[in-house]
């Protein structure tokens, strides 16, 4: 019985340790996830806080100065939209009309300053609706 207790004790230590790791990791990595209309419908969108926003790349909105790192575009959902300024690499699946998740923060002008774009690599060309 003593051995059994010892095993349970070791097991408990592991569970507590793993739980602690999870908690610490969670605090540093939890990010709010909105769709464009949820965000624009809100009274006080979280300024400065890192968020993820899901929307569709609006037609005619993408401006990339060739040979630069900055990309401006708008993501929309229904008739709501949100301007985005992105710095850096753009995933290949980023394309007008595609669904994207943009990670970044809202600045004072209400622009989403993005540092990461996750584009849904639709394994299919869904005809634009």
């Amino acid at each position, binding site marked *: 019985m003593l051995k059994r207790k010892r095993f349970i004790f070791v097991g408990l230590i592991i569970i507590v340790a793993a739980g602690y790791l*999870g908690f610490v990791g969670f605090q540093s990595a939890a990010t709010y996830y909105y769709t464009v209309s949820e965000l624009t419908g809100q009274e006080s969108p979280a300024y400065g806080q890192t968020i993820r926003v899901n929307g569709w790349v609006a037609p005619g909105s993408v401006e*990339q100065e060739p040979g630069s790192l900055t990309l401006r575009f708008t993501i929309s959902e229904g008739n709501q939209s949100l301007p985005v300024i992105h710095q850096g690499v753009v*995933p290949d699946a980023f394309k*007008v009309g595609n669904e994207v998740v943009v990670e970044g923060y809202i600045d004072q002008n209400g622009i989403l300053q993005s540092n990461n774009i996750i584009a849904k690599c639709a394994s299919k*060309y869904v005809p634009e609706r």
Partner: protein
Amino acid sequence: MGDAGYIVLLLAFAAAIYSAIAFALGGRGGHPALTESARNGLLAVFILVTLSVEVLVFALVTHDFSIEYVASYSSRDTSLPYLISGLWAGNAGSLLFWAWLLSLFAAVVTFQKRKSGHELLSYAATILMTTEAFFLILLLWVANPFRTMAFVHPDGMGLNPLLENPGMIIHPPALLAGYVGFAIPFAFAISALLTRRLGDEWIVAVRRWTLLTWLLLGAGNIIGAWWAYMELGWGGYWAWDPVENAGLMPWLVATAFLHSIMMQRRRGMLKVWNMVLIILTFSLAIFGTFLTRSGILSSVHTFSESGLGPLFLAFIGITLLGSLGLLYFRRKELKSEAEMESLVSRESTFLLNNLLLVGAAFAIFFGTIFPVISEAVRGVKITVGAPFFNQVNGPIFLAVILLTGLCALIGWRRASIKNLVRGFLWPLAAAVILGISLVISGLREWYALAAFCLSGFVLFSILYQWFREVKARHRIKAENYFKAFWDLLGVNKPRYGGYIVHLGILLLAIGIIGSSFYDVEKEAVLMQGESMSLNNYTLTYESTDQYDTQSKTVVSATLAVYNKGKLLGKLIPEKHFHRNHAQPLTEGATVTEVAIRSTLQEDLYVILISADKNGRAAFKVLVNPLVNWIWIGGGFLVLGGLIAFWPERQRQATPRQPAKKGNRDEH
């Protein structure tokens, strides 16, 4: 044409239902004629589903664009390998491929076990055919790959150019086979519960199946990582994307299962736990199939949304509740035959390793579905990003790796201190020397140092243990070292296959540690002739080029790479702008072709972000240390897995002999 495929599937569905029922009745009443007929039914399912796969492949190859699926995933320009891989490019096709793999595996296992008159087979076959019927229902009534369109597309919309990569030919089939294969051990486990044949029989029957499936899933994951690294052009190989996680979770639980069944075979322990593990593995495999199709989580891999979600959830729910319920009723017959004798024993390292692997899988599961939980509970979606997964899993995986080293050195039952010291001394010394030399060469992060030393320790201890075994054989049999090594490998394939797998995991770990702690990156806008530098490298942007091919415009930039002033060569990252024939007015797909200068020490990874006509271009440059070791480790993993899988010459299915001495322990 499409109709033919559909009718064949309908017949397959009928045959699957018949076979499932006939197997169940035959197994129950012991009617050999009925079982024989059920077996023919199962074979018919395989032949019919094969036929419908052939119809779809034929339609793809002959450009039958009246079928919606063919028009959506291929075009007249698509080359033959990618026409065939169109089979698994989309939702309906990959489900058909799933169903075909399951019918293939079921047919193979049925005929493999036919001669031995396996008592477990009947119910196992019932479960396999029920699962098959479920997938056929999806194919017939929800995601029909043979659906025709009123409007026949003239040229087809084509495969997404991102998918035109050799990875597309092997990654999805390996991964899917890795999911599907777990149906076999699951079916045998449930059959063992139903028939109350709860000895080692079912474990002996499924060990090699599980190993093969585990290997396919592992290889599929690594190939996926390699594909992402080479093709997706963001500089990394693993993003903790929900669908990547979906492939990793069943693999982790199956790893635990492969280890804990050794405990049952040798010591008669952990019987309930083994059942739980295989039930979880199979449920997670189905969950993975579900995740890619439901659209409930945002992922780079999503198929377009479909009505499959609720059906999959129902199937997973029934599987989990049914099998765990059954397990509960049989719990009294699954008593352990032995007790843990000591904390310092191979049993306890296995148990610990099991808990850690399942714990890691649970943490990943939790992180993956957290957005769904938080939305249900608080009404807001909260996602957890890569830092969560890294922080939780980093220490867990390091502990698993440490145990990998320890358990090889610790004997079964109870280890003597003297033996331990003898086994540990040299590897420990080597690890300390490694640590000191790393500090001298400038490594300072304690976490990375610890991780490297730990991996080094385990690497050395496996090699040392192996060396000792070879030496013993050399002494006893008077063989030279090479022959002793070779013969030993042949005598106990599972054991040495396992060693090689462990070495592979360590190389993988070293690659992951190096590339996640010491990667550096830089973005820059350069005019022609300008340079940028990163670590030792200086890159000079020399020229751009642009040319058109039939289907795309290629923009490339040439950079000269110098290391401390010495010219190493040129790197030419490209961007391909595909023209969309189907919809000429819409924007075509862009494919980034990165340029990588790869050595065993590190990869120099260059992405062309954009270039203009005036000679200005934007780049992202990364230095990823030790990445190649991940792929090399993957190679070892596959090699070792195959060796362990290779049939043993002598008895394979002997029952456990009580307290057998000697070193026939599989490892």
